[in-house]
């Protein structure tokens, strides 16, 4: 049994029980409904800023883009201005495609050793597809939730919610994003379990956010389709929360607090975890830098002088030999004999 994911699974179950039971205790609703969410939000905002500022504090001493296409050199050779950008515009397009469409992951291949001696590299689209599905649907779900935090609800939010439910199955109508989100999460989880290499590299901190987000999606779906949570009550509560007039609405039910608690934990956990790739991707020097190295000098703020072996030192050591084979020297051979005899090759 894989200890890494058991830890994480147990942690998420414990969190579930904590909120489920805790919300029923006296003062529990205030604690899980008001104190924890505010605290989590503060941790998230400060933690996120702190992490980004901390990254920014370290300079980028060298310009080291990973070039994934033809450089700009001779005028008649067509450069690849996106994968090997020489302008800020090129970098913006490269980053946009990276952030929005996971361009690098799209390149993914799967290696196999076949027939004993043939290596093959097949296009591997599933990781790309499910990652994209996960991130996009998660985004849509979060965006849809704006309807709980705005009054009146912006038309765009309504529209997205409507599109999301266009299949019109059941009542309340099925939102596709939630289902795809859960499915993509399951894929991302299962590949960590079933692909031996993935199991080898996966840490508890890889499973934990997966289970946590599965928990969020699960409790959300539970409320919407099964326990049929009091939506009006929830909206009253969330509006009070975002207008900083926190007030508990009675009778929303424990599952809601579990849902909210999971989200809070995710927010508080975010800045201390790999989830910071959300911020980091924008600052990755191999992706966000322009490959104009040889035509625009990059400055290293901590560049310091170093000890070098000068030509003069070199000639002093080898002058006689240089003269011997007719190599030009700066100082002519002195009458002085060389002090040290020569060794090996």
């Amino acid at each position: 049994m894989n200890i890494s994911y058991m830890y994480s699974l147990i942690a998420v179950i414990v969190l579930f029980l904590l909120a489920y039971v805790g919300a029923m205790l006296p003062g529990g609703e205030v604690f899980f409904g008001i104190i924890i969410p505010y605290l989590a939000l503060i941790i998230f905002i400060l933690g996120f800023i702190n992490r980004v500022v901390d990254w920014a504090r370290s300079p980028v001493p060298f310009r080291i883009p990973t070039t994934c296409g033809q450089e700009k050199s001779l005028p008649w050779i067509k450069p690849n201005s996106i994968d090997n950008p020489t302008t800020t515009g090129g970098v913006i397009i490269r980053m946009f495609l990276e952030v929005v469409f996971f361009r690098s992951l799209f390149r993914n291949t799967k290696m196999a050793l076949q027939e004993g001696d043939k290596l093959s590299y097949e296009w591997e689209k599933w990781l790309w597809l499910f990652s994209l599905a996960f991130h996009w649907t998660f985004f849509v779900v979060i965006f849809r939730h704006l309807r709980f935090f705005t009054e009146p609800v912006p038309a765009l939010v309504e529209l997205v919610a409507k599109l999301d439910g266009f299949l019109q199955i059941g009542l309340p109508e099925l939102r596709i994003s939630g289902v795809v989100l859960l499915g993509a999460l399951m894929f991302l989880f299962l590949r960590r379990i079933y692909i031996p290499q993935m199991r080898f590299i996966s840490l508890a901190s890889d499973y934990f956010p997966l289970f946590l987000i599965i928990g969020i999606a699960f409790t959300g779906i539970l409320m919407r389709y099964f326990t049929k949570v009091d939506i009006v009550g929830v909206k009253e509560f969330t509006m009070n929360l975002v207008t900083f007039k926190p007030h508990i609405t009675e009778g929303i039910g424990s599952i809601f607090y579990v849902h909210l608690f999971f989200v809070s934990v995710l927010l508080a956990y975010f800045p201390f975890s790999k989830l910071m790739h959300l911020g980091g991707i924008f600052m990755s020097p191999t992706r966000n830098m322009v490959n104009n190295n040889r035509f625009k000098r990059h400055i290293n703020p901590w560049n310091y002088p170093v000890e070098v072996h000068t030509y003069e030192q070199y000639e002093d050591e080898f002058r006689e030999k240089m003269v011997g084979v007719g190599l030009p020297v700066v100082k002519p051979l002195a009458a002085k004999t060389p002090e040290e005899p020569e060794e090996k090759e």
Partner: protein
Amino acid sequence: MSELPSPDEFLSKIDHKPSPTGWMDTPVEIRRGIACHAAKPDRLEYVGFPNPREWSCFDEDWQLPENWQEILHKGFKERLDRFRSVKIFMDICVRCGACADKCHFFIGSGDPKNMPVVRAELLRSVYRNDFTTAGKILGLFGKKAKKAYGARELTLEVLKEWWYYFFQCTECRRCSVFCPYGIDTAEITIFGRELLNLIGLNIDWVAAPVAFCYRTGNHLGIQPHAYKDMMDFFTDEIEEVCGVRVKPHFMKKKADILFITPSGDVFADPGTFTCMGYMMLFHFLQEKYGLEITWSTYASEGGNFGFFTSHEMMKRLNAKMYAEAKRLGVKWILGGECGHMWRVVHQYMDTMNGPADFLEEPINPITGTKFENAKSTKMVHICEFVADLIKHGKLDLDPSRNDHLKVTYHDSCNPARGMGLLEEPRYVIKNVCNHFYEMPANTIREQTFCCGSGAGLNAGENMELRMQGALPRINAAKYVHEKHGVNMLSCVCAIDRAAFPTALEYWLPEVDNCGVHELVANALILPGEKKRTVDLRNEPLPGMEDEDDE
């Protein structure tokens, strides 16, 4: 080589399935055939590196300084403050595994710790323990809690793992192409090796060239007179093949251009043929257009093994290029075929040792082309230079003299992924050869595979590692060999030319290896040359020797 199993046996033993336990529960086993010899003390002493001593990685005791953990902790901290790249790469990896099967060493060995993600985790685990809040808090709950978070203390065991795996990475950046965040294992390895060097842990195949280069100007430790002797020898060889005596310039003041190339090409086949190619090309340009290109024995190394040691050492070795160009008063610098040399020249040199305001913005005086892309660094790649000459019809070429060759081209890692030099060499090859075939798309250009011996791993004692690393590249060459009858694997890297002959002999003996400018020289018609009946290797040119015999 004799200790290696047969290629078939080698292949049958590759298993890409790791043990079911996590990587932290899989102890490191330093193996012969994979690990390299430790740096000898005199190498470190010569360049003033700490802790010089006789030692071996197979010893129980590595004779580390008493406070080695403290040194590394401090070194780690300092470097996090200096390099945003590594700091970010420590934090944002999600372990998606896209990099896993992109590494030639993982493909060729199946050792799961050669998955780039794990190589980085070796550092990250210590980073989490020493430098993150979460790691410190979880540390209070004991080792197990830390481990769940992927954190661990820097123990001797961990240090040995660092050593073993940071010298199983060639800094080729292939994984970085596929990483959704651009995490670059080259940065990780550079960082890791820089730390190891703080306590005197280097391999001799890196440390010796560094010391040699510092003293003699080149990695092989060739002293000026020996360098000149080699060039004289090439001059004789060229005369034998072409009937023309070339006259290379050495450290000629006020020459137009300073030429710098890896010393490996002066020393060992098949690089020597590429070197002869340069000499013939420069002779042609001098005779025909009066262009003066000078060599230097002081700056007689294009490569930079300092890059495989530390940023500081890289700068110390690289300084010679600009210093010599300034001393000689040339207009600009031309760089030969080399891999990591071009990463250093392209991405580091100007920043480290510039600005090169004593040089002119490079212009090809023969064609009038301004090398706009090199106007600050003032160093031009020979493939850019020659492609420009060919495009303007300035070279007299007879590509049929390469008709006995069916050529494919190996993009060297650094010019491909640290620069983007993809079309120039292809253009040159297609103009000097009639038979050119590309290897499969997933193995060339930005997805090219390393030769398996870069970043200082081209030693003799780690032959099994080298053959593992070379497998993906040679396997792709084998594909075009079987499909098109390719018999020549060309490249623009001196390490390639040192590594491929051995790798080809083992994996694919039917195919040979050459530099692009060997092909250029075969085709180049020198003024006043005799009818060529052999190529630069003194191998008869089919169809040309007959008339001679009759």
